[in-house]
């Protein structure tokens, strides 16, 4: 049995050998496994749906917790499942107060905006300014509130996730304010990435990942994140040709339309060409996002260290593409009824291609301080149910 790990990332010596050719063949590694069954989840899903409708939505927290508990328990590492230890009743208050409150505020501000607009129908500069100001104020308020809720919900979910009866954790009580500030910065950066035409995006993606990972811990052992902004920049740069191909697909048709669009005979074939271009753009866009998702996941898992544990992810773009296309087709043709099947098979693919090594080290973790995090914020959100959302690889 491995010696207990202390609270610091151990095994600095092993990392240097880590990145060479394929260290995963010699190491004693074990994959995450997923034992979910479609039929079983289908019935859970259906029961949840029926009870949510029958209770006018009051059952929602139970439905969400039970479905998450199912996915966690079926996610197994070295024969042991994960646990999501939550009493849904604690979420009910948060769901009620914050969830309903937020949606009411949204509806109310919509109504207010339309009432304002119709009240000053011929609008002068002053009225425009008033509306603009109130909208900005609303956005700033949302920014402040949502980022706080997001941090609290991440903290809550982490503290309620267990493996081998040891709690995960995210940040600590005294760190709350700095976590909040970082989240505010992250959201602001993500917004700023829009006018930068995405140039800022690799940096934002890196920073978001770092935020998610380096504040996380298992027991007393913190996760560390070794990727650099340069890694993410290279990744996005390598995906760039696919993106350009996607954006450029309709360009020839648009150019021809501008040049010959006024000639009746040319119009029909040119419009057809444009439609083809748009379809190509969509297709290349999907390929681009699958490639990026797979490559980013491989990079991210490679860069996560937990004590002596290393992770290895073998997602490929082609497989993700096939998964996504078949999922969407089946969802469409089943009118959505195949949702449980889609969830199960996606989780299986995503989880079973993650290897963890060395397997023996799973035994040697020490428990840390247990935290009581308020359930209020988590109630407001419905985040990803699968464990991938908690160790957090879905962005």
């Amino acid at each position, binding site marked *: 049995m491995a010696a207990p790990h202390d609270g610091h990332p151990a095994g600095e010596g092993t990392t240097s050998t880590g990145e060479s050719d394929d260290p995963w063949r010699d190491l004693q590694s074990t994959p995450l496994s997923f034992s979910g069954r479609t039929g079983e989840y289908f019935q859970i899903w259906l029961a949840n749906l029926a*009870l949510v409708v029958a209770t006018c939505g009051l059952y*929602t927290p139970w439905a969400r917790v039970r479905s998450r508990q199912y996915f966690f328990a079926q996610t197994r590492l070295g024969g042991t499942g994960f646990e999501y230890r939550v009493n849904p009743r604690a979420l009910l208050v948060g769901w009620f107060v914050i969830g309903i409150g937020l949606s009411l505020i949204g509806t109310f501000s919509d109504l207010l905006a339309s009432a304002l607009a119709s009240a000053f129908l011929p609008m002068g500069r002053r009225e425009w300014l008033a509306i603009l100001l109130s909208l900005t104020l609303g956005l700033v308020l949302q920014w402040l509130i949502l980022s706080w809720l997001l941090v609290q919900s991440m903290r809550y979910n982490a503290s309620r996730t267990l493996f081998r009866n040891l709690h995960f954790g995210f940040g600590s009580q005294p760190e709350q304010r700095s976590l909040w500030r970082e989240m505010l910065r992250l959201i602001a950066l993500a917004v700023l990435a829009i006018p930068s035409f995405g140039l800022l995006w690799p940096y934002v993606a890196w920073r978001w990942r770092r935020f998610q990972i380096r504040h996380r811990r298992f027991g007393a052992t913190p996760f560390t994140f070794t990727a650099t902004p340069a890694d993410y920049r290279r990744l996005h740069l390598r995906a760039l040709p696919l993106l350009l191909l996607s954006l450029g697909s309709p360009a020839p048709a648009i150019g021809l339309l501008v040049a010959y669009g006024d000639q009746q005979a040319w119009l029909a074939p040119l419009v057809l060409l444009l439609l083809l271009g748009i379809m190509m753009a969509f297709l290349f866009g999907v390929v681009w996002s699958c490639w990026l998702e797979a490559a980013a996941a491989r990079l991210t898992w490679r860069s996560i260290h937990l004590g002596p544990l290393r992770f290895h992810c073998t997602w490929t773009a082609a497989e993700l593409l096939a998964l996504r296309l078949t999922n969407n087709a089946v969802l469409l043709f089943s009118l959505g009824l195949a949702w449980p099947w889609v969830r199960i098979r996606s989780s299986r693919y995503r989880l079973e291609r993650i290897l963890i090594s060395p397997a023996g080290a799973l035994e040697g973790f020490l428990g840390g301080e247990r935290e009581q995090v308020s359930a209020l914020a988590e109630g407001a959100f419905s985040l990803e149910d699968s464990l991938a959302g908690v160790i957090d690889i879905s962005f």
Partner: protein
Amino acid sequence: MLHSSGTYYDGNTSRGVPVQVVAQGDGRVVLRGEGLERDEALADLRLEQPPGHAQPCLHWPDGGMVELADPQLLPLFANRSATRIQGALQWTERHPAGLVAALLLGIASLTGLVVVGLPLLAAGVSAAVPLSLERKLGTTVLAELDKTLLQPSQLPPATRMRLQGLLKKIQPLPPSRRSLELQLRRSSLLGANALCLPGGVLVVTDGLVRLGSDDELLAVLAHEAGHDHHRHPLQMLVRGQGLALVAGLFGDGGKALQGLSQTLVRNAYSRRFELEADREAVATLRRWNRPPEAFFSILDKLERERGATKLPSILLTHPSNQEREARARAGLRSLPP
């Protein structure tokens, strides 16, 4: 004496120890493993069973936990209230009968919500909205329509005067004490048509005015006034919002289904509203001693103008003319002569 095997995790390290858990007759539970021996009262232990097929976990008060490898000990916890609730949920999630029960419950409550709940809610909400606000809403909608579907009317002033005179005929009469506002518009897209907007804003197109006699136009105006009397536009708005909320409960699954079923329900609401408004139309004709046939003849003229549809009624916002006529006649018979 019941006993199970399992793996013990103490909550302080991630180490798992194979153990035997033995429930003794005296209400004590003993746990034995390599270098481990614990003795606890059964009443202080807590059983957790995650949904689906997964090992149940036995929790010790100090945070220790055993992942049980077999279900031998489960009967000991069967009569606890927490276990009973979990058990009921698990029964629903596992057994075919539970599936059927859940489905029936869901369908029954969904039907109740759509048939009784939402209409009641919408009636309450629309009764609480003041007329001034409703009128403002109607004006906004009209302004929006003027930008897209509608163009200014080209009717001669005399015809307009005639129509305003017809409006006066239905206006002051009980039970509708709400003032109505008639707006004449031309529309190439809508053709011969009439609309009722929130707050009693009635829109009649030039095409319809050219198509109908005075009695027929009176019937059309009375039909639209009937929509207003029952606050149909506002109710439709509230019901639509409610439907969207209900559909939101279904989450991400079944998005395609949601759009379709919402449309079907909305169409059903709309058809019911049309029949209600039809009753007002024939009642108004009766009140002014005009033949109710005027209403049926304008319906026929409209159908001839647009061409009859072969779609089943479930896909339509208006019932078929045969049904409308039959229902309106039945309504007439129930009126005092």
